[in-house]
């Protein structure tokens, strides 16, 4: 008897081992999702909705036309109720996954049963399935989408780490870190920090002559002091404008074929002015959306509305005007959505939004606000326009000398030259219709101006015009406006927003990494009257911002993408910043603010090759500026939509054909080539070398000096060795072959300065090495 039991026991365990082996107990990682732990409490907004919206909403979401089987999973009532097509069955039975058809379908394997259907080419992974199961078990509760609930200031979370936090921001960040058993990085070195703040607030490196002063400064509140100084600088306005121009799709040409010149630059000058005098964000928006409708509107307020005329305008012969007029209005509508509300309005142009609560009717409701402009499209082609200097399409305002001396003094215009700027008006009221499938020639029902109620209701007390729209947008309880802006400022400083998809806060957008922090900041921002400088300072004073950007192996392991902010970010500067940086450090930068756009170096022939040949008006050929025009800050570089400045687009600048709020940060060989061979860069290296050689007697300090000028820190001994050796080496070469040296020193238009050619050329190459370092073009 005993033996038999033992025998059976052995048999069982043996088979057990075999079974375990075959069923993959020993070779795990087959399904990486198997090991993901389902959270104790499943959150609808953060765990479930992304799955449902991404996989199910296409057929079971807000879009009434595409809805299958009458089922919609975005609304609790419908999801809980009996299924129209299969009586007795329910998509979701709170608490009972086994009885919930939803769960059956996503776990089914029969091709005719499984959801999403086979042809959707989508499939839930095991983790997602377990999430949904648990969610249903927990009662399958629904909540409003997080971004459509007005933000509230949460209690500051309790944290254990003492003495790190410097303000509220840190509390939220630290909480997440402690949840993940991570520690914040130590504070960044003074030099790094100063450079970081300077770049963030002015887009320029700190003056290497002033920086040491800061370093020696022992008084407390150093950082706070630095921040204030940079915020006070005029370059602050330029820096902020640079970013806003992408949102406003600003350009100096009309776009489309036969691209021709337009004068919108006075509007750009206004933006700089507005930022520099720290105009509150709500006012900033109101003026741009509806300045012309404000009670006894000032010239400045009217000028601001140029924002909504920055879109491309066609000059192609034989276009159908109505078609393009509707494109223009669509552009304004989408820009409001993407740039200001951070929502993909455009998805509701042809049909109800598939994911967010925006009906097609509501889309045209917003459209209606922008549909009353007395625009007729361009009246003439590029060539005629050039002849008669027709650089603004009606409606426009004409800015006179008198105004540039007075109320519009911030416009940097040459005396005696009037300039026309396109602006908004409501002087041609049009009845707006819902356009079937978005086709301009297929109008259906008429619609009234209205905004998406699902986001924030449009109060009856508001006027049904752009002014009302502006007030709706800037209402302190509008759930999006402040969040979106705060998030973009955060992205400007940290490279990534708290919501990574800065352009989409909707259901399909990514979720905030620190929801409470985002809400707290947004509230705080609004409570402080939308004060942008205050917001920037708030963030910069946080220990989070001031961390070192060093990536320890541990951190790389734990949080490769730095979602938790256990370190400061480290990312490549924008093309504009890189160019400005190099101009500034070389001493070439010409600091003038505003004025007509300028034409710095550009490889010859680019415009000619792509335009239609022959005389095509003002922008037929690219004629480089002489003198200062070559060395202005990059936001003044002439922007031809159909062929943007290559030195910018190579570094991921958008085309400005439409509103863009987030630039890629790619890393390509073309960038390497530009940094090596763009005449602008070479000239900078040359001039920097010349000045250094001329102003320093003994050449032992050359390299050190150049290094300090460019990177605003003194080189490590190792670095100095490498560079010194290189310099000596180059010097030897050039002393024998002065011919080569002179060739190099002939680069660029700036007048050469008396200095020893061999030394200068050698130092120029050394400077080039430093200009091509990753550190130089990176914000650390």
């Amino acid at each position, binding site marked *: *008897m005993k033996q*038999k039991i033992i025998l*059976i026991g052995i048999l*069982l365990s043996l*088979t*057990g081992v075999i*079974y375990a082996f075959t*069923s993959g107990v020993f070779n795990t990682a087959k399904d990486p999702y198997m090991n993901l732990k389902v959270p104790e409490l499943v959150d609808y907004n953060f765990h479930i909705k992304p799955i449902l919206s991404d996989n199910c909403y296409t057929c079971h979401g807000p879009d009434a036309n595409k809805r*299958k*089987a009458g089922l919609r999973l975005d609304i609790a009532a419908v999801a809980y109720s009996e299924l129209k*097509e299969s009586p007795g069955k329910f998509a979701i039975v709170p608490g*009972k*996954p*086994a*009885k919930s058809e939803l*769960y*059956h379908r*996503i*776990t*089914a394997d*029969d*091709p*005719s*049963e499984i959801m999403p259907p086979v042809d959707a080419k989508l499939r839930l992974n095991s983790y997602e399935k377990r999430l949904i199961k648990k969610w249903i*078990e927990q009662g399958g509760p629904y909540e409003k989408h997080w971004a459509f609930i007005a933000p509230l200031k949460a209690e500051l979370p309790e944290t254990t780490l003492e003495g790190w936090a410097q303000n509220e921001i840190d509390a939220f960040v630290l909480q997440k870190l402690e949840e993940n058993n991570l520690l914040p990085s130590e504070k960044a070195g003074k030099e790094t920090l100063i450079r970081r703040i300077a770049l963030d607030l002015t887009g320029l490196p700190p003056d290497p002559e002033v920086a040491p002063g800061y370093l020696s400064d022992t008084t407390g509140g150093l950082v706070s002091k630095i921040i204030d100084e940079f915020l006070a600088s005029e370059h602050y306005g330029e820096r902020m404008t640079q970013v806003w121009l992408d949102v406003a799709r600003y350009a100096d040409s009309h776009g489309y074929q036969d691209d021709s010149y337009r004068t919108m630059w006075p509007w750009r000058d206004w933006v700089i002015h507005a930022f520099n005098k720290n105009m509150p964000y709500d006012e900033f928006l109101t003026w741009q959306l509806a300045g012309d409708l404000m009670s006894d509107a000032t010239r400045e307020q009217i000028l601001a509305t140029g924002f909504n005329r920055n879109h491309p305008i066609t000059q192609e012969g034989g276009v159908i005007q109505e078609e393009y007029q509707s494109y223009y209005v669509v552009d304004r509508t989408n820009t409001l959505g993407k740039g200001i509300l951070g929502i993909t309005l455009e998805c509701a142009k042809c049909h109800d939004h598939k994911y967010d609560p925006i009906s097609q009717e509501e889309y045209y409701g917003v459209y209606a606000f922008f549909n009353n402009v007395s625009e007729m499209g361009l009246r003439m082609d590029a060539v005629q326009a050039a002849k008669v200097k027709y650089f603004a399409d009606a409606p426009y305002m004409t800015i006179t000398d008198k105004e540039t001396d007075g109320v519009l003094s911030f416009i940097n215009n040459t005396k005696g030259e009037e300039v026309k700027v396109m602006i908004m008006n409501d002087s041609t009221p049009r009845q707006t219709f819902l356009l079937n499938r978005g086709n301009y020639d297929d109008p259906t029902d008429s619609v009234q101006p209205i905004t998406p109620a699902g986001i924030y209701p449009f109060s009856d007390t508001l006027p049904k015009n752009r002014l009302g729209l502006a007030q709706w947008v800037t209402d302190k309880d509008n759930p999006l406006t402040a969040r979106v802006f705060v998030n973009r400022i955060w992205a400007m400083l940290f490279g990534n927003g708290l919501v990574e998809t800065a352009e989409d806060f909707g259901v399909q957008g990514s979720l905030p990494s620190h929801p409470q922090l985002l809400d707290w900041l947004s509230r705080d921002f609004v409570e402080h009257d939308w004060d942008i400088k205050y917001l920037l300072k708030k963030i910069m004073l946080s220990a989070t911002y001031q961390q070192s950007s060093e990536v320890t192996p541990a951190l790389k392991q734990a949080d490769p993408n730095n979602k938790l902010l256990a370190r400061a970010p480290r990312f490549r500067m924008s093309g504009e910043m890189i160019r400005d940086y190099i101009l500034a450090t070389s001493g070439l930068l010409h600091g003038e603010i505003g004025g007509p756009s300028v034409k710095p170096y550009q490889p010859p022939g680019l415009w000619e090759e792509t335009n239609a040949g*022959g005389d095509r008006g003002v922008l037929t050929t690219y004629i480089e500026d002489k003198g200062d025009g070559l060395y202005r800050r990059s936001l003044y570089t002439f922007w031809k939509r159909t062929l943007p400045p290559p030195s910018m687009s190579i570094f991921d600048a958008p085309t400005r054909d439409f509103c863009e709020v987030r630039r890629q940060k790619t890393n390509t060989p073309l960038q390497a080539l530009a940094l090596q061979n763009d005449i602008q860069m070479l000239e900078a290296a040359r001039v920097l070398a010349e000045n250094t050689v001329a102003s320093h007697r003994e050449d032992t300090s050359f390299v050190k000096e150049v290094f300090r000028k460019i990177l605003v820190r003194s080189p490590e001994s190792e670095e100095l060795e490498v560079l010194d050796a290189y310099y000596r080496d180059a010097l030897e070469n050039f002393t024998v072959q002065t011919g080569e040296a002179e060739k190099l020193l002939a680069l660029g238009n700036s007048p050469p300065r008396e200095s020893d050619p061999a030394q200068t050329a050698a130092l120029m190459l050394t400077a080039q090495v430093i200009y091509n370092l990753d550190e130089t073009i990176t914000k650390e």
Partner: protein
Amino acid sequence: MTLNFNKRWADYIILSLSIFFVFCLLFESYIAPPALVAWLGQWHPVLLHFPIVLLLIAIVLKFVGTRIPPMLLTVAVISALLTAITGFLLGLKSGNKGDLLYWHQWLGAGVALTAVVWYYLERTGHGAHRALKGLGAVLIVFIGFAGHYGGTITHGEDFLALPGSRQEEKIPDNPLIYEHVVNRILKRRCVKCHNPNKTKGELLMTSHDHLLKGGESGSTVIPGDPDKSEIIRRLTLPDDDDDHMPPEGESPLTPDEVEILERWIALGASDTLRLDHLDPTEALLTLIKEMMEPDPLEKWALLPDVADSTLQHLNSDYVTITRLAGTTNAVRVVMYMPPEYDPNHILNLRPISDNIVEFDLSGLPIGERELGLVAACTNLEWLEIDRTPVTDAAMDTLNVLSKLRLLKVYDTEIGDESVPLFMNWEHLEKLFLWNTRISENALASLKSAKPDLSVEDGITGDLEAFFVAEDSIPKQDPPQIP
């Protein structure tokens, strides 16, 4: 006679297990077992073999009238219960239960509980011998069906089908459209329900005549008019339409299959139409050709595995190695001329020589050793060695490449000695040789020997005259822009 042994522990176990199991069955919908318990479910497939074997033995013994060893019956019953319980747990994990699973579960339960009853009767001695035999018989039936359903669940309906009966025969070179193509599709998708035994909608699809005759809704196929033909209408309805064919649950036809039926009907739904009757722009041609030639991916499935890491490692600035498609093990290797050429770039590829199906060495100064490596690529189908210093001698080493389909050797020094080689490669379809030393006659003999082989010998004759001989851009004064 009774089993006279007093192993009370066995009774208790069996009793408690039975109660637990019954409880499970009754309150199924309220049960959400913790992970560990659910995991026990995984043991079902292990355990189920014991009751099957042991119970059967016991029953056999019963029938032949020999005494059943008590321990045998005890273990059998316990294992039956355990199997049932674990099976139940496993069942919980699969969201919705199909019929199969449903029956399997209840029959399984039946087996277990009947076994318990039997045990009880044996134990207490109640129940006539005959009754017990009957019980055994019932058990056999239960075990049989439960087992069958279980098996079907696991390996699908037709896993008992005889070998061969499942795979379809290859389509001949010049197939009859109906017999070899259309009928094949119908067999695969429709005949299941439209056959003599199970003539749904009074429609038979097993023969051409029946198909044309149609079913209750008549006009199944209207030669020349696919749009009016019921079959096409049904096939192209939206999936959720009740009239859609095949009905929900059956795997639908692929778009290509539908298009084939559509075109075939459009062309008159004849049963004598052959592939070579079709005009070259006819869609059917392509569709059927695609059906006929096996997807290369299947052909390559036999190649030895190669890891991405290996490919990555062998990739370099001037050598690009990529899988030909998806996750296949067939790779394509291209090398471009680096500033300083190094044979090792190629020689290093030996580890993956069996995986190289396409090899592009055009314009490289390759020598004997490199070609040696090429010769080692026995699965090579596509080889480009044009504009290389390749010689006849070297070419000869390549004669092992029996799978070669395409070869580029233009602009080389090879001569007539290589021609026999071209004749040997039976799979060779395309050959590009011009500007070589091969003589006119040799070329002619090659062409006559292999009429199917397309030999590209450059731009010659009147084409050359028309294009190259004189630069024939007509010169005119440029038109003016209006």
